[in-house]
């Protein structure tokens, strides 16, 4: 722990203080130090979107933010948003529309979809696709995912 920096952040409402190596990115910190494995690690260079988490109310790539940069920040993960019921309607729509196959991309899809719902609640189908363009689904499930989000936004 040669360069470790004491870092305090709030994760899903709970304040956490740890000494963190600067090289540790936020999603690895959440998964490995805090056991919050709902945020996934895919490409590790910002392309796939599987690591999407919310920092101070805005979605970010968990693999492109160092955990030490989250000092003083409010971090929310799929676990927090799921437990609070914030995602309930989206989760039900994903279930109803069979909008997942393997499920690897699903937590981040829900995070991105919720972000759109908050920012642009009347988004068109095209805008839904644009907003989700940074989240890859390798089971080719986009059609059903967009259907599910459309159900929630327009339903």
């Amino acid at each position: 722990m040669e360069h470790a920096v004491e870092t305090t952040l709030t994760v899903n409402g709970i304040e956490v203080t740890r000494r963190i190596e600067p090289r540790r990115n936020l999603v690895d910190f959440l998964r490995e130090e805090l056991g919050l494995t709902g945020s996934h690690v895919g490409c590790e260079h910002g392309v796939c979107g599987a690591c999407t988490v919310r920092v101070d109310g805005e979605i970010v790539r968990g693999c492109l933010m160092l955990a030490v940069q989250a000092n003083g920040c409010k971090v929310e993960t799929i676990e927090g948003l799921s437990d609070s019921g914030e995602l309930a309607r989206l989760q039900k729509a994903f279930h109803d529309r069979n909008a997942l196959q393997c499920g690897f991309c699903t937590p981040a899809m829900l995070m991105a979809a919720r972000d759109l719902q908050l920012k642009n609640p009347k988004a068109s189908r095209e805008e839904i696709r644009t907003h989700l363009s940074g989240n890859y689904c390798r089971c080719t499930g986009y059609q059903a995912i967009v259907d599910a989000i459309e159900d929630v936004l327009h339903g």
Partner: protein
Amino acid sequence: MKAPSFAYAKPRSLEEAFDLLERPGAKILAGGQSLVPSLNMRLSSPELLVDITGISSLAGIQVGRTFRIGALVTHAQIERSAEIRKQVPLLAEAAAHIAHPAIRNRGTLGGSLALADPAAEYPACALALNATLVLLGRKGERRVPAGSFFKGLFETDLRTGELLAAVEFPRVERSAFLELARRQGDYAIIGLAGVADGSGRRIAFLGAGATPVLAKGASAASSLEQALKALGNDIDPPADLYHSSATKLHLAKVLLSRAWNTLSKPH
């Protein structure tokens, strides 16, 4: 992959930042949306990251005779700013093309310009708008026009120990930003950033060389036909993995044709 080991410091003042930047292997970290992937892929191995996001004088948008946008202003802030959309719409249009919402929430104007990726959106916008880059160092301030800032591939006029503090953009309401990419948010195959005002047109291309390129001949042309002919002398785009130089030149002409009317309306 995982990033190599490095130290981290977050200065609260410019003075403190300049001290830290003198240390061996120090590198500036702002939004990190290009630096962190390069660390994760081990393409970069700094000894110390100096996180400048705590320096408040580098943030914010000031509206005066020109638009002064702090280096730490994010793509999302540029995209959402009603003032920018109205008075320098080129920037707001360009911001929407940069990667994806989660990346635009962290990536910064200063980071994009200081990195000087020739396929990035802001360098071409800065060139088209003839923006002034404000560079700060221990010895004071240097003001560099965009045309002299971009020196080569990922190479700028920034000197060791200096940082990009802000960028001043003139108000130019008539503009066009267009790019072609295989998927929304991908790096552009080729892109166009053009503005027009009383003094004429300035059309720059991204993905068309080692730096953003100002298409001088096409900008000065009096008809689209002339402009398309001139563009072949203005740019010589390098081939990439999927597109030959000829294809990229053809696509540049397509974009120029699409932008021409917007940039040629009577004043």
